[in-house]
């Protein structure tokens, strides 16, 4: 069974006929060729497939594409604007928060949503905020520093 959906992905209107069983993750990766979103487990336990749906982080492997109908989706490919990296992307590079890079897109998007709701987090708040996203390379230390760095810079701008 197929259903027509209309979504806005990274600011672009997309219409598609998708099978009801198609996950949002597979729709993004295989129908739209946005392979920056990664599949680590397929059952919502690793967070690598995190995208923003109407600004909220979701595991795209747990959402069917048809459920995203009418929503706005941001993937890692949509984060940099005008050739300029998002501050989180810059901080992940400068703080050494990226090793293999497989969990990186999901963590950056999750961190973006988190910092919008919690602009000045403590280290503990950051650690709990990213608890649903697994990273096996870094031990999380440098990821936490990168997120805190952006939070600090935002706080600096706000004050």
């Amino acid at each position, binding site marked *: 069974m197929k259903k027509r959906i209309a979504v806005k992905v990274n600011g672009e209107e997309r219409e598609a006929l998708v099978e009801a069983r198609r996950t949002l993750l597979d729709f993004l990766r295989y129908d739209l060729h946005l392979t920056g979103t990664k599949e*680590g487990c397929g*059952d919502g336990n*690793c967070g690598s497939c995190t995208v923003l749906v109407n600004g909220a982080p979701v595991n795209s492997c747990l959402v069917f594409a048809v459920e995203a109908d009418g929503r706005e989706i941001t993937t890692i490919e949509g984060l940099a604007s005008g050739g300029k990296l998002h501050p989180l*992307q810059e901080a992940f590079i400068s703080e*050494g928060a*990226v090793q293999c890079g497989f969990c990186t897109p999901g963590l*950056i998007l999750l961190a973006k949503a988190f910092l919008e709701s919690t602009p000045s987090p403590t280290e503990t708040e950051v650690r*709990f905020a990213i608890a649903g996203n697994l990273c096996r*390379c870094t031990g999380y230390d440098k990821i936490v520093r990168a997120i805190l760095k952006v939070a600090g810079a935002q706080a600096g701008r706000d004050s």
Partner: protein
Amino acid sequence: MTPYSSLGTSPPRIDVADKVIGKALFSADIVLPNMLHARMLRSPHPHARIKRLEVGRARAMEGVMAVVTSADIPGLAGLREVPDPELPCMARDKAIFEGQPVAAIAAIDPYVAEEALDLIEVEYEELPSVTDVLEAMRPDAPIIHPSLRAQNLIGQDDRPSNIFWYMKYLRGDLDAGFRQADVVLENTFRTQTVHQGHIEPRASVVDIGTDGKLTVWTDNQSIFKVREFVAGYLGLPLRRVRVMPVEVGGSFGGKLHQQLSPIAALLALKTGRPVKMVMTRAEVFKATRPSPATAITIKMGVTKEGRLTAADVKVIYDFGASTGMPGLDAVHHGVKLLDAYRIPNYRIEGYDVVTNKAPSGPYRGPAAAQANFAVESQLDLLTREVGIDPLEFRLKNCAAKGDLTVHGAPFGEIGFVDTLERMARHLDGRAEPRGAGRGRGMACGLWTTMSLGSAAHINVNDDGSVTLVVGATDISGTRTAFAQIVAEELGIGLDEVTVASGDTETAPSASVSVGSMITRSTGTAVMRACLNLKEQLCRRAALRMKVDAEELEFFRGRVILKERPETAISFAELARDNFALPGAGPLYASGRSDPLGKPTPVFVVQAADVEVDKETGKVTVLSYAVCQDTGLSINPAIIEGQIQGAVAQGIGWALTEGYVYEKGVMKNPTFLDYRMPIAPDVPHIETILVEHASDAVPYGIRGVGEPPMVPTLAAIANAVHSASGVRLFELPMTPEAVLEKIRGGEGPSPKKREC
């Protein structure tokens, strides 16, 4: 003061720019026109004879393009059993672990492939299985590989056995050694099967050309090794297989073995179309190569002054259904477990044993962490007996230059004492947490790196930039380290260096990315290519300056006249002549490194502060410090990241991770139930890099990636003892296990209390 300008600095990894924007290509990202999707049918039983395997209905299903079984594997023709460890085990007459491939299907989409699996008919006759390593060693245990005979086992008769490797080492006089001891302790330690836990599942995409040539994209630790696997499996010459470079989403030893590509390649050959095969997470757990479980018994003696006198050790590795990989048999590394200390009398016995569990493989310092857990736990117990500070105890007994390792080679330059003393200084002033279930533990680790042959090419571009081409799979930031070596040697900026990862046909050969030796193996080749290039530059400058090349030398990006250094030609100027200079061709250099370079020991000392909740048994790691001898830190930030990641993995191994089997079937093949550390589980990990230069490797480097996980299990266990007063001899130290110990020692269980 460092003599270097680029080495020792921490520029960001050159591969990460593409990773933060989602552009980096991993194997599952590869999509080819007309591509088929493949799925595997796997044995639901840990040990079962395949009485009937019927694939006709699946083959006839619309959308199914090919179904293969072990009968279709040309490279295996003639082999009855499959103990051959280099080959992926597709079940032949019987399945020997749950998850073993039985058949594979290629179809027009993944859904059709999945549905077609249900149409394959398999009739199994279940056989008795064994998942406990000690039970598998008993004479009446079910035999897993009937053709297997224990190797090296003195006095072993010709009956089949589940023991496939045995080693024994003796030194001194064991009985006399124990007689000299004031305290002798004997304990048995058990560790569980754990997975490397790379977040990227295994994936393979195989294309086929009109000439029948196969092109492979897969997550790997060596593109050349993948080629070997695929060609060997299919009985093809190496030239029929080409393996492309891809980004690898974590590996830690787990991606050396290639379970998918040979089968995906077989399906591509059958169908003439590209085939993609991606494992589910459950398949990754059940059918890749987790690290062996162990049972280790140690008897150790010490004088009241704190000198080790003797050790009697039996190390048993549970290798699952696999008989290892050549050179990677666990005991070869396991028997090194006493090398860090001066012990005049010892006996070390090592066993590798097969069971009906997932076949085992290397994981970040293969075999070492388990053995270290036993040794360093035992040492900690001895220090408590004789009342000596654990750091001081290790300083008293630590190995030094000239001491012999178990394999008979003397240590060269080692930094064990420096590392211990540096940790002592670090801990000085950081008071050990006491009371309220808090405590500190420490442990030391040793991992020895080698090198294997590798090569590197450098092309000089007309604008003075250079392109380095390597064939080494980058799993830890090695492209950045290579770029730093080139920048250092040629005296040019890092942004003038491009590092290209070639494929098996365009890249120079490279050793496998294992053993913490990529920077050493391929980096040495890179350095030598630079030396070769500098000689060429001197000859070229001699032509232009009309002097003898011997009068010139390369110094910081310029060729200078030795007598008059102000007379110089810059590297960029020479590069401009790249094609034009009469008497010289394009500037191009190559270098290679030698196989089996001198063993280079890496020592690491770790200290953990933990809190044990006596009500729940939960262990929280409060803070963690690592002091590691790197020899020279080419990129300290990358090294710090490697160390922090390794410790986090060690924390998982110590506290929460582990395969849970029920009658040979894995019960927790998800990231929910196989509990890897999440961000709140891991504290900030302080890293201190000691640089005691190696005398065996250019720049004095030693290797980084594996050593920092080696002592983590023991450091945590020792800290748990300090914090709670109880000793855990078995991993993982889950809340249940810790609580049981605490209650066992403190009186009535809650059930009795309720009464």
